């Protein structure tokens, strides 16, 4: 699971709503996969990213330091873009858990795939 995916994932446990984001990440096995650097891709993706969540995840994984918010003029700052490229796309969490910040429910990550399935009681219907 890449951190960009983590940035989109949210808990859907019944009653939790927007408080289900971001999921608390815990990793026991991580792999770094080189991905071709595309500066435009990174620059355009940054406004779409929930920055606080990314910061938290990157900290948990002890990654290269992510600034508190995108620095001004980031679109042309190649060093910054490369860093963000690495954080968003090259870090793959293979084993670990995602935890719903509201309900505490744990979702396992195994072989790089998070399992977000809930039991029938846990979902709303």
């Amino acid at each position: 699971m890449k951190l960009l995916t983590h940035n989109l994932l949210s808990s859907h446990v019944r009653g939790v709503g927007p408080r289900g984001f971001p999921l608390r990440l815990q990793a026991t096995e991580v792999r770094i996969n080189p991905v071709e650097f595309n500066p435009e891709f990174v620059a355009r993706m940054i406004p779409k990213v929930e920055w606080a969540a990314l910061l938290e995840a990157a900290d948990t994984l002890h990654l290269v330091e992510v600034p508190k918010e995108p620095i001004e003029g980031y679109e042309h700052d190649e060093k910054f873009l490369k860093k963000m490229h690495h954080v968003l796309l090259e870090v793959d969490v293979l084993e670990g858990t995602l935890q719903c910040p509201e309900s505490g429910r744990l979702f396992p990550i195994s072989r790089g795939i998070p399992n977000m399935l809930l039991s029938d009681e846990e979902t709303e219907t």
Partner: protein
Amino acid sequence: MSEVQEATNQLLDGNLHGNQRSIQVTESGSRSESEHLQVTIGATVPTGFEQTAADEVREKLGSSCKISKDRGKIYFDISVESLAQVHCLRSVDNLFVVVKEFKDYQFKETKEEVLKDFEELAGKLPWSEPLKVWKVNTSFKKKKTKRKKINQNSSKEKIDNGQGDRADERDDTKGFTNKTLGSHILDYYENPAIKEEISTLVGDDLASCKDEADEGSKEDTPEVLKFRVTCNRAGEKHCFSSNEAARDFGGAVQDYFKWKADMTNFDVEVLLNIHDNEIVVGIALTEESLHRRNITHFGPTTLRSTLAYGMLRLCAPQPTDIIVDPMCGTGAIPIEGATEWSNCYHIAGDNNPLAVNRAANNISSLLTKSQMKEGKVPWGLPIDAVQWDSCHLPLRTGSVDIIVTDMPFGKRMGSKKRNWNLYPACLREMSRVCRPGTGRAVLLTQDKKCFTKALSGMGHVWRKVHTVWVNIGGLHAAVYLLKRTPQAFVHPVEHDGERAPW
């Protein structure tokens, strides 16, 4: 300068120019023969996506297409130099070079006469240039077959060993770099164990001839080519069958070229496509259909990659679009997406653990393939897999730009009854996660009735823009292109502990 001198100079100049001119003429003469050879290529595409394929041809080859009335076929002209790029088209299943096209063929009255005409036709066709193209094409295939074998072995190993050692991969790569020919063709060919069934049709007598020939000479002399004829016939007024046409036409072709008929190990596949009064004679340029290219791990209802490509193209992905397939199965769509639109981000999700694992395996196989091709460290792809329930997507509201999926038809997967609950719930959840205003969805389904009903109550969030009618394994299906309206998602009012506001 004296007059004599001047005159001599002029004479010399004249001669020189004369010589140069004649040299130039000769050079361009021989050049034009091989390089500037223009041919008409025919391509079969998923029916309904002819226009999408034509767009891809124009974009990548610069040629305009003729879309045939015989559904699922497009034609375009290229110079032989571009043949390699033609193989890179992602919306075409099969390619062939046109030998001759008859726009309005006059069929005689009786079967005997029609078949006799086919026999006579064989010797009258302009074979030489198409055969040149076939020859050029065969040299590409040789390289592909070699690499395909290498790929299979390595990807099998990778699956057996699990993650595989990074060091091992690098060693493999080094070895293969030496063997790999510097080819500009991408290897799309899949595991040969999964073979697409091609319609037959060389007659029994030719088949029996083949058996004798095989037993006679194990070692074929390279000059004698092996061939087969494949005839596709559609139309109500024909007094003959495709078998008969293939047999008699094939017999004449054999006599004309002195080739050997062989249904399975052929070098040349001659195509005889008859659609009402339109006949196209061609020579196949692809062996196995290209459409299963990205998938090494099949599932029960794996979608054709060419169809997946067509669906993705339909929603015009923009750079950095987040593209989600909430019911991905083996991952055909997201994998095609990650390969062709690598400036977008793709997520493949399914509730079935088998499906998600297959999708993840297919993604790994794709990485192995690109590693073989580049001969260097493999790049990861912008794609991820998640196990989830499509009716309760664990995604932030309004965070997805494009949703593309192949919805359960209710025939081989799921059931029609289940669809009555599944479809509305899915559509609702999709409208929640899809970005208002700019978001769009491309959904394939055979259960058109259920889908239309489910969509009817959702006009405030989904607007149907376009429908493509397609044929999936004999079933009449539809691909719906929906646009997400600008209206923000409104949560149903909370009561009795039901769905909470997001």
